[in-house]
């Protein structure tokens, strides 16, 4: 079934407590009937079996659940799946092309930017978005001049990655990995 973005995005109520809706995950369209309480994170992990996205805190405090929705990174744990009717979602499973890793994944490998790896999918999804946000000129708390182009610096990357905690403390190498991708791009 084809559906354009112009179609009004109203999920269908199945019974008072659940709904049927469609969303695209890593370029594949899915129609789901779920209890309204299901978060996007649980829908990805439990229904679609995409367990790359992790549940750390389930309260927006750690970033392990970071995914991209319509090109913007969000915490999948603080979003209801039913609110994503028609949305285009990318998770860590969608990052690599057949045969080669995404440059950010490769950079994490190159720099040993993890220990246990639990926070890593969220870190990588977030890091990819951070470079796009800098390129798009989105300011951060450490941006000195709000009206000038933003320069990539360690301080900018650290601040923008502050929503992703790493219990193993791999921060120094995560920073190196992100810098590697930033340098290749520029």
């Amino acid at each position, binding site marked *: 079934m084809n559906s354009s973005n112009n179609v*009004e*995005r*109203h*999920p269908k*109520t199945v019974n*008072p*407590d659940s*709904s049927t809706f469609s969303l695209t995950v890593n370029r594949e369209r899915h129609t789901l009937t779920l*209890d*309204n*309480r299901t*978060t996007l994170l649980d829908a990805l992990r439990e229904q679609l079996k995409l367990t790359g996205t992790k549940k750390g805190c*389930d*309260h*927006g405090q750690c*970033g392990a659940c*970071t995914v991209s929705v319509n090109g*913007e*990174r*969000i*915490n999948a744990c*603080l*979003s*209801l799946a*039913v*609110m994503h*009717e028609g949305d285009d979602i990318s998770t860590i499973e969608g990052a690599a092309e057949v045969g080669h890793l995404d440059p950010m994944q490769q950079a994490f490998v190159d720099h040993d930017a993890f220990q246990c790896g639990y926070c890593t999918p969220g870190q990588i999804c*977030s890091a990819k*978005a*951070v470079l796009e*946000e800098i390129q*798009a*000129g*989105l*300011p*951060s*708390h450490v*941006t000195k001049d*709000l*009206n000038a182009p933003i320069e990539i610096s360690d301080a900018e990357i*650290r*601040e*923008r990655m*502050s*929503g*992703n905690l790493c219990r193993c403390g791999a921060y120094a190498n995560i920073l190196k990995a992100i810098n590697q991708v930033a340098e290749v791009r520029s």
Partner: protein
Amino acid sequence: MKAFSYERVSDPAQAAARAAEVPVAKFIAGGTNLLDLMKHEIEIPKHLIDVGGTGLDEITPTDEGGLRIGALVSNAALSADTRVRKDYAVLSRALVSGASGQLRNKATTGGNLLQRTRCGYFYDTGMPCNKRSPGAGCAALSKGAATRQLGIIGTSDACIATHPSDMAVALCVLDAEVETVTSTGEIRRLTLDEFYQLPGDTPEVETALQAGEMITAVLLPPPVEGRHAYYKVRDRASYAFALVSVALIQAPDGTGRVALGGVAPKPWRRDDADAALPQGASAVMARLLDGARPTQENAYKLTLAERTLAALLAQE
């Protein structure tokens, strides 16, 4: 989380009417505060009205020369808007000091204004809290309670919690107004001072919103010239709520406006304190924090507020 029914509406007036009509209904926008509270079963709505499709996601110029920020504009988009960055920098600065990049992409202007307190006892359903269960008592006021984060002024014997929003502190110093639609379709405009209520004996009542009333926009008056700054002091360098924050707009002649976050149940500002700005931080705080009732654990906020303003005034 308790079960709930869900609908998505496309018109603000319809949303307001539905919210008044359906029992125990709540609006949901970004969901970043409401879902958190629903998981803790602090908020237990039976019906959610998703306002994400109401088209209120634009920032448009007003006839008066200001800006109208739709209630659904995300915190990220608002902070990045070129007009806001240039003419209302204090607002951009406050927004980017809050939460994380992921959260700011979801958090909306209306939801940010209505986010609830971060008082630890409000979150701990095993402890009494007047805000959560009116009449239950306030754990933060019991002997030996942890009150370091809590309020020092505008508080009451029923509740000493603070309002956690950074954005609202900047909006206060900018004299912004909140535009709403009531359940009967009436449009209202409230100053932030009218919008936020002090706890008094009813800390569960936080705003002047009526049943079903929906925020449609925030209105910024024409730009106020001068230096715009927001200084947030917190326990870590990022991704933490304010202990104290100061929003400042200062003209070259030294006059200006000051609002405080992290100290009160709403953004804290007083005209006589603004008037004292040319005399410096201690003159401002003598007025702004006059009548403060800190606990032993959070009396440091009196000093911290003054020093934070002094530090801002010393910059440039």
